[in-house]
Each structure stands twice: as structure tokens, then as C-alpha cells.
């Protein structure tokens, strides 16, 4: 991150801290004097909850916490959900052996024990992980959660034919050869046939990895490692009513309309070191119109946006002008970028790829993303700031935030010459039609590339069909998509959790592909192999940095921004903070209300 940015942050932090202090001393209803400051209604102030805890002391037990969302989860089944907000929200009704720390900012990305009494005892070769379970952990019917329930919950990841959609890291690490068939095809009587996990007794669980993986515990912190009880497993319908192991349980759920969680009376505070469980009731109301949703948030009818992907331009403007104290501006962990499939000519030639990188107007792309506040800082490389080993804007091999930020026509033409296309070429940008911001970036790219002689046609495809359209290399080649506009955030904050599906040659798939550039680089593959075997943090960071450099040097990607959001936090919320564990979202599980009515 640049010094400029840090100092801006620091100023905001100071201002916000001052406001929080002022609020605490004047009993929550003075304030309002400072520009950045809280309003009469008690909002904590601009960025007051960004990477730090706002108004922790004001949280009261009870009340209804109201989420609003323009989008339902992909599934509420712990095995199947892949949306970031679903992982965050699922902590209300599910627990894992270990989970993200309930701390603001970077510390929130760390792993902390949840059902387990402590972090794993790892054998010296990094292949055996042993956990002991806590006492007093129970299901919503009062029965204890056993190591077998956890094993069964993890085994469900293998049943991809029935339970598709979720992350499959555990399957690939524990069973790389794909020998286990999944619990539904399991011939053993207890359906616990997976050999890589052992449950010597109800309180102990042992993971035996065929090959070490230094991020294994991060993978166990994912929602997909939640326990599921066999007699409550309704298979593909489980997402409609997951059986709770956390402080709240499902009361009602109508997909696309609303969801209500109420207290799980069997859950015991003393068995759970991380969840505060302040509200009595948690509800989500689903909206079909984002502008409507923002207006209702501003009106105070709801507390926060479930999706946590920033407000729409309209609501953002109103909020910034009138309710700045209710906004936070976290870095999301996502990078928004354009990627160049090497199968489409002339992008097989790295000089043609670099011509696009140099020809692009990075400030214009940033404006199209929403500007420095709502969009983010200009992206200069492919490792998000929240991932260990990232260098932020300090690593800027193409001077995208520096000398070339408005595009460098001369340099682009040089690259075109080196590519053998001195007069430019024609290509097509593929962009999702349901993301106006992405279409705006496509238009920006189109306008700046015109200046270097690259003529671009914009093809807007059905965003719901992404895996079959741009995720199919043969279709990409057929349609001639030389430039694909996408974004990616880490599943867990490591270079493996971010970059493996994007850059490793093994992850080039016929459908649902994410290695859009079709990178087949032995050096990069080798670095990932080294990474999983490296157990010390410094070594892991070094390899992450190296992978990032290799990817950037190949010119496969044109990053737009290190994304930032403007998220709404109602004046009723207390104990609010953003966490890198969930890509800069608020940590849902510990939100409280100031008043219980």
C-alpha cells in the first residue's frame, strides 16, 4: 500500500477515533459537530467500524437484527454455499472445529478454535492434524455434537453430484485421487467410510493428509467443514432448513422472500468462545431492487445489507451527502480485472497482452468502478492487499498507478510492433450483462484501446450463465473473447485460497473454469507445490510474492482496482467491525443492537 493511502487512512482513523471518544464521553447523543462524525441519531462516524470495533460497549442483549438483501444465498446448506455473505451469516447456525477469529481487520483472518479446544496438534511432517472437542457443545435438540457428526459433515463435500456448489478444497486435499464416493454412496454401515478422517472417540478427530498442505487449517475454517447430523441430513433440501449447531436456529425461510432465525435455546454461551449472540432474533428480507433496498436502509427500516457489496450509485450519493457517519469504506479483498485468454489470437503473444495493459487508461477504469472511494485504489498487481505476501501498490510492474496511469500510447504501440500487429487488431470483450459497473469498465477499456488502434466489440452475456459461457474454454475460443472482465476474492486469505484456481494448470476445466488466461506455466505450478509444503509464515509469504510476480510478468491480467466498498451500518448497530476473514464485510456473528425494542 502506498504511503499516501496509509496517511489518508490514518487521518480517517484519527478522526473516527476522536468521534468515538467524544460519543462515549457525551453519552451517545451529542456528536454531530465533526464532518466525519456521528450524527444526532448516534451513528458511529465515517469508517468508525473499518478494521476496528465501533460502539462495543453499547450492545445490549435482545432485539431483532434486520438484514436486507437484493440477493438470496446460493444455498444455506453449509456444504453448498459459496457466497461470501453466506459463509459469514452461516456462523449464526453452524459451528466448525476452527473458524475465523472474531477480530477486526487483519486479525479477523486468523484461525481460532470453535468446537475444538485448541488449534490442531500437527505432526512434524505436516500430514496429521488432531483435534479434541469442547464439552457442552450441542445440536438444537440438545444432543451433543460428536466427532462423527463433524466427519459426516465434511464427507458431504464428496457428494458433489447431489450437493454441488460449495468449495471442494477439503476433498482435493484429503482425497486427491478421488477414491471415496461420498456418504450417499458409502457402503459402510455408519456411512463414515472416508479413510483420511479418523474418529477414535466422540471427542477426538484426526485428519490424515496424503500430502502436506500448509493451508489445511484455513480450509477447516470454511463453512463447508461444519458438522451435519446424519439423521437430520435432508440431502439436496438441507439448505431450506439446516439443523443448527450455533446460537440461532431456523424459524422460517421462504427463498427469495425472507428468512428468520430465533435463539437456539440449547446453545450454551460457555461452550462457545467466539459468539456473543446479542440479538434475540435475526431476520433477512429479500428485495428485488437494489435502489429500493438502499432507500430502506437509509430510512432506518433495516440495519445492514446482507450481501455487503456496497451501495448502488444512487443510495451511495445520498448516504455520503447526508449520512456519512453511517458508512464504512473497507477494502474488500477482491481484485477487479480483465484477463486475456491465450487461446484467442493474438493474445497468445505476450506483447499483444501487454499492449492492452499499457493502452488502458487506469484512472478511467477506476472511475468506472466507482472512483477511489466506492471503487478502490488502482490495482497494480494480482494479489489482494488482505493476502499475506501482497505488496499492494508498491509492486507496480507496469506503472499503472504511476507514470502510465492515464495509459501510455507510445509504449502500447511499441508492444504492438513487437507482437507483429503494428496497426492494432480487433477483439471482443466479454462482460456480464447484469453488472452495470462491469459494462462501464468495458466501455472505458474500449475507448482507451481505440487510441492505440485496438478495436473492441463488447459482448454482454447473461451473467447467470457465467460458468458455461466464459468458464468454457472452447466457447471462449469460438466466440473470440480476447478480453474477459471478471473479479475474484480469496476463499481464505492465502495465495492458495486466491490464486490456485486462477493460475494453476491443473485447474483448467472444460466448464466452470476460472483459469481464464489458460496459464500453463511450470514455474507457477512448481511454486504452488512449494507453497503447500512450506509450513513457516515467512516462507509462505515469500512464495506468494513470487507467484504474484510471475503472473504479472506474463501479462495475463490487467487489474483495475483493489476493490473497496461503501457499506451501510444503521445507527442501531453496536459492536460493529469489518474483518478480513470475510473480505471486509462486517462480522455478522457478533453484531449487537443498542436498543432492544
Amino acid at each position, binding site marked *: 500500500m502506498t504511503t499516501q493511502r496509509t496517511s489518508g487512512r490514518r487521518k480517517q482513523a484519527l478522526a473516527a477515533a476522536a468521534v468515538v471518544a467524544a460519543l462515549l464521553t457525551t453519552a451517545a447523543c451529542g456528536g454531530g459537530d465533526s464532518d466525519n462524525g456521528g450524527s444526532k441519531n448516534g451513528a458511529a462516524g465515517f469508517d468508525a467500524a473499518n478494521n476496528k470495533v465501533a460502539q462495543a460497549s453499547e450492545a445490549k442483549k435482545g432485539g431483532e437484527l434486520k438484514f436486507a438483501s437484493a440477493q438470496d444465498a446460493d444455498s444455506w446448506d453449509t456444504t453448498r454455499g459459496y457466497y461470501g455473505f453466506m459463509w459469514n451469516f452461516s456462523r449464526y447456525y453452524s459451528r466448525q472445529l476452527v473458524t475465523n477469529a472474531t477480530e477486526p481487520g487483519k486479525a479477523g483472518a486468523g484461525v481460532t478454535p470453535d468446537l475444538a479446544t485448541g488449534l490442531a496438534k500437527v505432526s512434524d511432517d505436516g500430514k496429521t492434524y488432531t483435534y479434541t472437542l469442547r464439552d457442552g457443545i450441542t445440536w438444537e435438540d440438545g444432543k451433543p455434537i460428536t466427532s462423527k457428526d463433524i466427519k459426516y459433515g465434511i464427507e458431504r463435500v464428496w457428494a458433489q453430484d447431489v450437493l454441488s456448489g460449495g468449495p471442494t478444497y477439503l476433498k482435493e486435499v484429503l482425497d486427491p485421487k478421488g477414491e471415496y464416493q461420498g456418504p450417499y454412496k458409502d457402503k459402510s454401515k455408519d456411512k463414515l467410510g472416508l479413510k483420511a478422517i479418523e474418529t477414535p472417540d466422540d471427542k477426538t478427530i484426526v485428519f490424515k493428509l496424503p500430502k502436506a498442505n500448509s493451508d489445511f487449517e484455513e480450509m477447516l475454517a470454511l463453512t463447508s467443514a461444519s458438522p451435519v447430523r446424519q439423521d437430520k441430513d435432508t440431502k439436496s433440501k438441507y439448505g431450506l432448513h439446516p439443523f443448527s449447531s450455533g446460537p440461532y436456529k431456523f424459524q422460517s425461510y421462504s427463498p427469495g422472500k425472507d428468512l428468520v432465525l430465533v435463539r437456539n435455546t440449547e446453545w450454551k454461551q460457555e461452550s462457545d468462545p467466539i459468539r456473543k449472540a446479542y440479538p434475540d432474533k435475526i431476520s433477512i428480507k429479500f428485495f428485488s431492487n437494489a435502489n429500493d433496498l438502499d432507500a430502506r436502509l437509509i430510512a432506518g427500516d433495516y440495519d445492514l445489507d446482507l450481501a455487503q457489496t456496497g451501495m448502488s450509485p444512487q443510495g451511495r450519493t445520498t448516504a455520503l451527502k447526508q449520512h456519512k457517519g453511517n458508512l464504512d469504506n473497507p477494502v474488500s479483498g477482491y481484485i477487479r480485472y480483465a484477463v486475456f485468454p491465450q487461446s484467442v489470437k493474438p493474445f497468445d503473444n505476450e506483447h499483444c497482452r501487454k499492449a492492452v495493459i499499457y493502452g488502458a487508461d487506469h484512472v*478511467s477504469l477506476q*472511475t*468506472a468502478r466507482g*472512483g477511489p*472511494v466506492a471503487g478502490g485504489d488502482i490495482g497494480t498487481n494480482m494479489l489482494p492487499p488482505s493476502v499475506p505476501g501482497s505488496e499492494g501498490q508498491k509492486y507496480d510492474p507496469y506503472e499503472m498507478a504511476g507514470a502510465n496511469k492515464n495509459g501510455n500510447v507510445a509504449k502500447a504501440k511499441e508492444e504492438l510492433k513487437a507482437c507483429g500487429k503494428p496497426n492494432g487488431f480487433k477483439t471482443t470483450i466479454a462482460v456480464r450483462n447484469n453488472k452495470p459497473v462491469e459494462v462501464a469498465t468495458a466501455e472505458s477499456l474500449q475507448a482507451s484501446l481505440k487510441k492505440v488502434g485496438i478495436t473492441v466489440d*463488447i459482448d454482454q452475456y447473461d451473467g447467470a450463465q457465467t460458468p458455461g459461457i466464459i468458464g468454457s474454454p472452447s466457447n471462449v475460443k469460438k466466440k473470440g473473447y480476447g478480453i474477459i472482465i471478471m473479479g475474484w476474492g480469496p476463499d481464505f486469505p492465502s495465495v492458495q485460497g486466491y490464486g490456485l484456481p486462477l493460475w494453476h494448470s491443473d485447474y483448467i476445466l472444460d466448464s466452470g473454469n476460472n483459469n481464464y488466461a489458460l496459464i500453463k506455466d511450470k514455474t507457477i505450478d512448481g511454486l504452488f507445490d512449494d507453497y503447500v509444503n512450506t509450513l513457516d509464515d515467512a516462507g509462505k509469504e515469500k512464495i506468494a510474492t513470487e507467484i504474484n510476480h510471475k503472473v504479472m510478468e506474463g501479462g495475463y491480467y490487467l487489474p483495475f482496482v483493489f476493490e473497496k466498498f461503501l457499506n451501510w451500518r444503521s445507527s442501531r448497530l453496536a459492536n460493529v467491525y469489518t474483518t478480513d476473514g470475510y473480505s471486509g464485510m462486517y462480522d455478522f456473528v457478533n453484531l449487537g443492537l443498542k436498543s432492544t425494542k
Partner: protein
Amino acid sequence: MTAPLHEPTAEAAPSAAEEAAVAGAGSKAVQGRSLGRIAWERLKRDKLALTGGVVVLVLVAIALLAPLITHLVGQDPEAHHEDLIDPLFGTPIGSLGGISGDHLLGVEPVSGRDIFARIVYGARISLLVGFLSAIVAVVIGTILGILAGFFGGWVDSLISRIMDGLLAFPQLLFIIALVSVMPNEMLGLTGTGVRLFVMILVIGFFGWPYIGRVVRGQTLSMREREYVEAARSLGAGRFYILFKELLPNLVAPIIVYTTMMIPTNILTEAALSFLGVGVKPPTASWGQMLSSAIDYYDSDPMYMVIPGVAIFITVLAFNLFGDGVRDALDPKGSR
């Protein structure tokens, strides 16, 4: 607009514009031929219609001269001006959507493209689709309508049922579905070209039954008239009667319906572009501008107002002019 009417009336020039006589008598050849002249006299007295006509002419001129006009004001419809955008809100700097000496109607949010230049270029798309799809509809509608009316029997039944079917067809949904499966390149066209071609054909195709019905009705009422009988008894062939005797008498209703159809087509184009299946970016279109203005209705209302007003003026002008032409061409119509 009235020019084509004069052509077949070359030998009937002397018959003066005695309106009273025309209105009174319902007779054929002589008055029919001088109709154009009479209509023109009437139209000249209809100030509203004339205003509409002038506006239409101005719009056509703007569309034809778009490159010249934008060159004169020194703006390019596709050039970005991010320096004119407030990076915090994404809206133009300055009041009324960034209106200034350089940018007569302000600039677009986010990209900072000049709205005046985009409105001028947008007129091209609107009028092109409006006119060409009307022509497609008129050609198909006239031919099939006249055949149905003249031949009657199973020909009439068949064509009428097809028209009923098409009128009941959800054309907007059909076009949306069609555009999304269209290839990116066909017949030597790419991108926007393909979209325009498809839109014109499809809007025209779904518009012809409206003309077809009117033409069929008129033909039905005329085919038993004395002059047709006379021609027939003199041994005239079917196609002579169709195209030499009947068609000239259908010109008036066809013109009226065409002028009414153009604004409808312009609106359909705007609706399609609004829904994202119209022309492709960065080509400017009024409907697409309206659509992207939704996100800024509060923070930059001018962005929504300007293309809205452009569509409003265009449609109103065509409608006023069309109404005037109908009144002028229909001597029995109440005025």
C-alpha cells in the same frame, strides 16, 4: 412527404383545389388524382401539423449531419472525459449535469461522454430504426393486405389469420429472445450492425399486420366499385387492376399509417435499448441513455431528462404531423 402523391397526377394538374366540391362529392378519378394538392392546401393551414413536420425535418437533418454537427461543437460521442467527473459520487462536476460552453447538454456520469454529441448520434439510431422498420412493414403490409382484400376466399382467410396471429404475438419478448441468440457477425455486419438489422426486420415484421388490415379493408370496399368494374370489363388483367387501379387509391391511408407507425417504432427501439438488447456500447441510443440514467435519477436528474425530452419531442412531432396528414388526406374526417 406529399411528393409521391403528385407523380401519378401529372395530367390532372389543372383541377384546382376547390375543397367544398371535393368534400361534397364522393366521386372517383378526377378528385382522387388531385387529392395530393388538396391535402397539401389543407396541411398548410394546419399550424400544429406544420410545426410537427418542420421538427421532423430538423430531426432528419440532425441525424444526417450528425458528424458535421459534433465536429462543429468539437465533441466526439464516444470520447471519455473522466476529468469532468466527481470521483466520489461518479456524477458530473458542476450544476445541471455539467452543462458548460464545451458540453452544451452536460456529460454522462462515470464516463464523462458529451451528452449533446450522444443525443445527436442517438437521433440517427432512432430515425433509422423508425423509418426503415416502417418501410419494411408498409411493403409487406400493403402487398399482403391488397392480395387478401382483392382475392378474398382462402387467400383472405389465410392472410387474415396470419395477421391475427402476429397481432397476438408478444413481439417485445420475441425480439429480446432473438437478439440474445443472434451471432455477433452475420451478412458482413458486426456488433451494432447486426443488432440494428435484426431490430429493423423484426419491428417491421411485427408491424405489417396493422397496415395489412387497413389495406385489406380498403381494398374490399373498392374492388366492387364502378371504375374497377369498368377496367375489368375492358379486359384489364388482375395485376393491372391491383396495381394501377387499386393501389393509387390506397396511397392516402398507407401514408397516414406510416406516419403513425414511425413514432411507435422509435419508442420500441428505445424500449429495446432500455432493456439492454438494443444497439451495443459505445453506440449512442436514447433508450440506452435513459436506462443508464436510472442509477442517477436523484444525483444527476438532467441525465435522465435530456434523452427523455428528445424521445418526447420526436414522438410528439411525428404524431402531430401524422395527425395533420390524416386530416388533410381524409376529406370526410371531422376537423
